[in-house]
C-alpha cells in the first residue's frame, strides 16, 4: 500500500482513489466504493438541500414580511385602544418589554399598559434596550445572552409575526448588539421575523447593518438629533437609503411632519399622544397611505 500525502496540488479525493486501488480484496473495494458513492451523494444532496433551504428561508422571510400591513402604528408604553383599526391596512408594533442594561445585569420590565386590538391584527412586539447611565453596562457575553433570551420570549405572544428591537448603539457597542441580534435570531422561532429600528446614518453611508441576521431595519426619520437637517433634505429630495435592510421601511412621528412622505413599502408611525380613530385617519391622509 502506498501512502498518499495530501499536498495542495493533490486533492484529497485523488488520495482516496489511490487508497481504494491499493485494497487487496475486491469485495471490500466494492463496498468502499459504494460507501464513498453514498457519502458523496448524501453530501451533495445535503448541500443542495441547505442551499435550497437558505433560498427558501430567504424567500419565505421576504414573503412573510411583505404580508405585513403597509402601515404600522407604534403603540408605546401607555394605554392604547386600537381595536378600531382595519387589520388589512394597519398593524401594531407595541412596546412589549424594556430591557435595562445596568452594570453587569439585565433588568427586564414587561409592558404594564393595556393594549386593545382585534384578534386578527398583525402584531409586532418591540423590545426597547436602555443602557443605564449611572451604572453603564459591561456589555458582556452573558448580558447579550440574557437580553436575547428575554427578548425572544416576545415571539411567543399571540399574533406576533415579528420582533423589533429598539436600541441606540455607539460604534464601540456594535459588536455587542451584533452578538445579541445573532443570539436572538437563534432563539426566535424560524417563522418569527426580526426587525430593528435604526438611525438614519446606519442606513446611509454606514454598512454595519449589512450581514446582521435581521429581516428589516427601520430608519427613524424623527428625533434625529444632529442628523436631522441632512437626512430630511435627502428624503425631501426623494433619495432612498442605501443599506439593504433599510430599503423597505421607515419610521416617522406625527409631531414631526415631513413635506414628502417617504416612498417605502412599510411605514411605521409613532404618535406622542394616544392614538384615536381621528388621529389614525389624519395620519393615513397625511402620509397618503
Amino acid at each position, binding site marked *: 500500500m502506498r501512502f498518499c500525502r495530501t499536498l495542495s496540488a493533490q486533492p484529497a479525493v485523488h488520495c482516496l482513489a489511490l487508497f481504494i486501488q491499493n485494497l487487496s480484496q475486491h469485495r471490500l473495494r466494492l463496498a468502499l466504493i459504494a460507501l464513498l458513492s453514498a457519502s458523496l451523494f448524501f453530501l451533495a444532496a445535503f448541500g443542495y438541500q441547505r442551499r435550497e433551504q437558505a433560498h427558501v428561508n430567504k424567500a419565505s422571510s421576504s414573503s412573510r414580511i411583505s404580508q405585513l400591513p403597509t402601515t404600522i402604528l*407604534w403603540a*408605546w*408604553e*401607555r*394605554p392604547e385602544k386600537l381595536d378600531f383599526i382595519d387589520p388589512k391596512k394597519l398593524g401594531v408594533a*407595541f412596546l*412589549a418589554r424594556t430591557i435595562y442594561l445596568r452594570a453587569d*445585569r439585565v*433588568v427586564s*420590565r*414587561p*409592558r*404594564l*399598559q*393595556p*393594549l*386593545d*386590538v382585534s*384578534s386578527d391584527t398583525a*402584531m409586532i412586539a418591540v423590545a426597547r434596550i436602555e443602557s443605564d*447611565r449611572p451604572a453603564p453596562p459591561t456589555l458582556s457575553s452573558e448580558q447579550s445572552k440574557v437580553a436575547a433570551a428575554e427578548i425572544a420570549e416576545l415571539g411567543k*405572544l*399571540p399574533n406576533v409575526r415579528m420582533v423589533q428591537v*429598539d436600541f*441606540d448603539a455607539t460604534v464601540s457597542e456594535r459588536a455587542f448588539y451584533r452578538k445579541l441580534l445573532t443570539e436572538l435570531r437563534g432563539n426566535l422561532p424560524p417563522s418569527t421575523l426580526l426587525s430593528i*429600528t435604526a*438611525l438614519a*446614518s446606519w442606513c*446611509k*453611508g454606514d454598512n454595519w447593518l449589512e450581514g446582521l441576521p435581521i429581516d428589516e431595519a427601520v430608519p*427613524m426619520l*424623527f*428625533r*434625529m*438629533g*444632529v*442628523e*436631522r*437637517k*441632512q437626512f*430630511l*433634505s*435627502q428624503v*425631501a*429630495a*426623494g*433619495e*432612498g437609503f*442605501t443599506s439593504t435592510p433599510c430599503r423597505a421601511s421607515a419610521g416617522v*412621528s406625527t*409631531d*414631526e*411632519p*415631513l*413635506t414628502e412622505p417617504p416612498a417605502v413599502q412599510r411605514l411605521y408611525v*409613532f404618535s*406622542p*399622544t394616544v392614538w384615536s380613530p381621528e388621529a389614525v385617519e389624519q395620519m393615513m391622509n397625511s402620509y397618503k397611505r
Partner: protein
Amino acid sequence: MNRNLRKSIFAIPLLFAFFFQAPVTFACGPFSLDAIFSFSVHPEYPLEKYAAGDIGIVQPSYARSYLFVAYRYFNGDSFSQTQQQALVDLWHDRLDLRWDAGDEQAVKTWLTARQKVAGIGEPPKIEVFRNREKPNEYDSYLNCQNDAFETAATTLDARIGKFGADNAALKQWVEAQDQVFANCSEGQHIPSDMPADTDTLLRTDRQYQIAAANFYAGNFPVAQTLFESIASDAKSPWRASAPYLVARTLLRKASLGPEETKKESLGEAEQQLNKILTSLELKPSHEAAKRLLSIVRLRLHPEERLHELAVSLASKSGPANLKQDLWDYTVLLDQFVGDNEAHHQKITGPPTVLHDDDVTDWIVTLQAKDAEARDHALARWEATSSVPWLVAALSKIDSQNANASRLQQAAAKLPPSSPAFATAAFQSLRLDIAAGRAADARTELDDLLQKHRASFNLSSLNLLQGQRMLVSSSLDDFLTFAQRVPAGFSYNEDGRELPADAEELGSESKRLPGETSFDSDAGEILNRRLPLELLSQAAGNKRLPDHLRRDVTQATWLRAVLLGDQTTASALLPTLKALVPELTPFLNEYTTARDPAAKKFAAIYAWLKFPGMEPIVDTGNGRGTALNEQDSYRDNWWCSASLAEPVTTQAGEKTPQTGIPAAKKIPIFVTAAQRATASREYAVLASFGAAPNYLSRQVIEWATKHPTDPRVPEALHLAVKTTRFGCTDKQTGRWSKAAYDFLHQRYPGNTWTKQTPYWFKD
C-alpha cells in the same frame, strides 16, 4: 405573605400611577450634547432650589407638579424642609424613571432567608411580573411586590426562632411558600391544606399561604373568601391584616377583572376599607387602609378625589403625604386633560372639576392656549387680584389687550422678593417689546439685570437676556446679550431635558460649562437678519470671546467670498489669520491671487481643505470636530437645509418669547436698508443649494480654464470627497461623477487620481 402594611402603602399607588404615568419615550438619535439655555419641561437643576422657592421664570410648558409648586409660592405659601424633600423625590422618581417594580433586592432578601432552612432544594427562579390573560395578553402587571418577599423573610425568621431551622414542618412551610411565589409570574400553584392536628401556628400560616397563592394566581373570589375566613379565625396571627387583604383582593379584582364588574368591586373595596377604618380593633391597619381607600376613591370617584386632593394640596400646611397626594393629583389631572401638550386643544374633563378649585383652575388655564383661557385668566384676576392669576393673565394676553396696562402696573408692584417677580417682569417686558416700546423695555431690563442679576437662575437670566438682545440699540449691545451661558447641557434623547453629569461630558465638551454661546434666537438674527457689513463689524468686536469671534469671522469671510465681496473678504483676513492661524497659508494664497476668479478659487481650495468652515454662525455647542477635519455626522461645508426655511417642527422646540411679532424680533439698530440687504444676501446664499454641488461646480469650472494649476487634481479629489461627506441632494451624484470623470480623464496616474477610486451616487 403580606403583613408589613406600612411598607405596602407606597408600592400599590406607585403601581397604579404607572398605569397612567409611564413616560412615553422613543429615543432615536444619534444624540449630540445640546446646550439648554432655558429649561422648558422642568425647572433648572438642582430641583431643590425650585422646591425651596427659587421659582425664576415659570414656563407654562413645565410639568404640572412644578406648576403646583409655583402656584403655592405665588400665593404666599411655602413648604417645610420635609415637604421640599418629598417634592424633589417625586420629581426625580419621574425624571429618572425610578420604579419600585420588581426590585431584585426584595427577592434576594427572601431567598437568603430561605437558605437558613436545612434540607430544602435550590431556590426557584422568581419573576415578579405576571402576564394578563385574554383579551389583555399583551400587558403584564406587577403581581408580587417587594413587601411580600420582605414579609415572608420576616415570618420565616420568626418561625425558625420558634421551631428551629432543621424542623421538618418548617421545610414544608418553605415549600408551600415557594408555591405561593411560583404564582407571581404564571400558573396555579396552590399549596395543599394541612391536617387538622398540625400545630396551630403552622396550620394558620398554611391557610394564609393558600389565600395568598390564590391571590397571586388571580383567583380573586377564592382569595377573598379565604382572607375573610382568616379574618374571623381568632387563632390566626394573620387575623388583623386579613380584612385589609380582602380590600386589596377586591381592588386587584377591579383592576384585572372584567370591565363590567370593575365598579362593583371598587365599591365593595371602598365599603370594606371604611369598615376597617371604623374598627378600633383593626387600628394597626388604619394607615394602610386609608392609603388604599384613597386609591379606590381615585378610581371610583375621580372628580371628587381630584377636588379633595386640590383642597388638601392648597391648604396652608399642605397634606401630610405631599409626595403621594401630588402624584395622585397630577395623575388625575392627566386623566382629565391629557398628559402632554396636546391637551391644550382638548380638555376632556367636565369643566366644573377643572375650575372648581383655584389651584386646578390655575394650572389648566395657564397651560391652555385658547382665547377662552385668556379671558378666564383675566376674569379670575379681576375677581381675585391674586398673584397667581396676575401671572396667568399676563402670560396669556398680547400687547393689544385693553387690560395690558393695568396688568403691567400690577406686575410692577410686585416686590423683588416675590416668587412671582421674575415671571411677572418677563411677561410685562414681553408686552412692552411686542408693543414697540423698545426704549422702555431696554431701560427696565438694564435696571433689572443690574440690580437683580444674582437672584436669577441661568434659565431666567437667559430669557431676560434674550429680551434685552431684541431691544439692542447698537451692534455692541446686541453682541453683549446675544451670547449667553447655557443653563445646562443635555443629550435630551427623549425630551426629558436631563442635564448631563460632569462625567457624561466627553473630553471635547469639558470646556463647555461656563462658556458663552449663541442661542437659536441670536443665531436667527446673525444668520438671517444682519448684512455682511454688520457681520464684518461683529467679527472684529472684542465683546465676543475668541471662540465665538472665530466662528463669526470664518462665517463672514466665507459669506463675503461667496457673495463676491472681495473688499470685505480681504479686510477680514488679518482677523481670520489671528483667530484661525492654521488657515494662514491658504489665506496668503488668496491674498496673492491676481484676479477675482483666482481669489475665489483660492478660497474654494481653502474651504475644501477645511470642511468645518461654513457661511453660517453656529448656535449652541456648535461643531465639535476640528475645522480641518471631516465631521462624522456630515456637519461639513454647509447643509442647504440650514439655509432653507424650516419645513418641519422638531418636537420639544419651545418658543418662550411667544406673542412678539416677527418684525419686533429684529433689533432696532438694524436699519431698513440693512434688513433689505441681509435678505438679499441670504437669498443668494440659499440659491447655491447643496455645498458639494456648488464646490464641485466651482472646481470643474476652474480646472477647465486652468488645467495646469497644480492644485487642481487635489481639488477634484476633494470635490468628490465632499459628495461623500457633505450634505447632499439628488443632484449630488451627477456632480460627484463629473468631478471624478474630470480627474480620471485629465489626470490619469496622478496621485490624487489614484486616491479617488469611486464617485458617490447618493
